[in-house]
């Protein structure tokens, strides 16, 4: 099993055509890898909404995030993929699981939704999905089939401190506020 995953994930870095190492666009390999990874994303996402147990939901979310990261590798966005793994799967998700552990009396606690609500949600979501698919099928994107070359981290880094400097600093301020706010909320009131 680990062998399979090793092969799949390592091939995601692909038989590349450029320095970033994404699978050559338009190749059969890319298609195969895409369907494997997309299958992983879809199954995990469905797992999240079907699972009743909150810890299992978190595990499904974990696999969904990991598959999305592999999808980023396929899209030649290696940096985003790695960041997705380290921040999302490694950090945020563990925070969530930590929250689950602190807030549930038992791991098998369930909060059932009413039947009617389930039906309504299903109708809404399936309808939304179908309409989105219809829209996507009709949309005429420019230069859709021509994938551009992958990025380099240096470009992203340079853009972050020139063009996107203000959002970058704002993100820092937001993180700062979040740290203070989280610390305040976690403070034990005596």
């Amino acid at each position, binding site marked *: 099993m680990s062998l399979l995953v090793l092969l799949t994930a390592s091939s995601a870095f692909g038989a590349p055509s450029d320095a970033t190492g994404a699978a050559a666009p338009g190749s059969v390999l890319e298609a195969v890898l895409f369907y494997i990874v997309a299958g992983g994303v879809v199954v995990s996402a469905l797992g999240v909404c079907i699972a009743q147990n909150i810890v299992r939901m978190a595990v499904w979310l974990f696999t969904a995030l990991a598959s999305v990261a592999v999808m980023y590798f396929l899209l030649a966005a290696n940096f*985003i993929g790695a960041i997705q793994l380290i921040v999302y799967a490694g950090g945020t998700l563990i925070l969530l699981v930590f929250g689950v552990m602190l807030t549930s009396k038992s791991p098998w606690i369930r909060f059932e939704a009413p039947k009617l609500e389930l039906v309504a949600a299903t109708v809404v979501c399936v309808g939304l999905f179908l309409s989105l698919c219809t829209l996507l099928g009709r949309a005429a994107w420019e230069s859709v089939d021509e994938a551009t070359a992958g990025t380099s981290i240096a470009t992203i880094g340079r853009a972050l401190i020139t063009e996107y400097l203000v959002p970058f600093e704002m993100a820092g301020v937001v993180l700062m506020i979040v740290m203070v706010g989280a610390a305040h909320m976690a403070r034990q009131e005596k």
Partner: protein
Amino acid sequence: MLSIGLTHYLVVAAVLLCTGLFTIMTKRNAIGILIGVELLLNAANVNLVAFDRFREGGLFDGQIMALFIIVLAAAEAAIAVGICINVYKNLATVDVDSARQLQG
């Protein structure tokens, strides 16, 4: 089918979006709703990165946006988990239906 284009990725993003929405609508556990929100954000990220990949120019705006979203998602999760724990401290449950003191 074998030529993977932008639409393929957008369909995957649509699946993520709809499942995220479904999760938010049906789960009663506050952290479950948070998980749904993470799915939604990932749908947006997949969209951004895919558009970035299949776009002329190579400015990587999409990737940078995705980066910011990941950062903000981490911040959002930290605050939201903090709120959940506070709710749990006060109400001894994280069922969102039971947190209705402000409902008047």
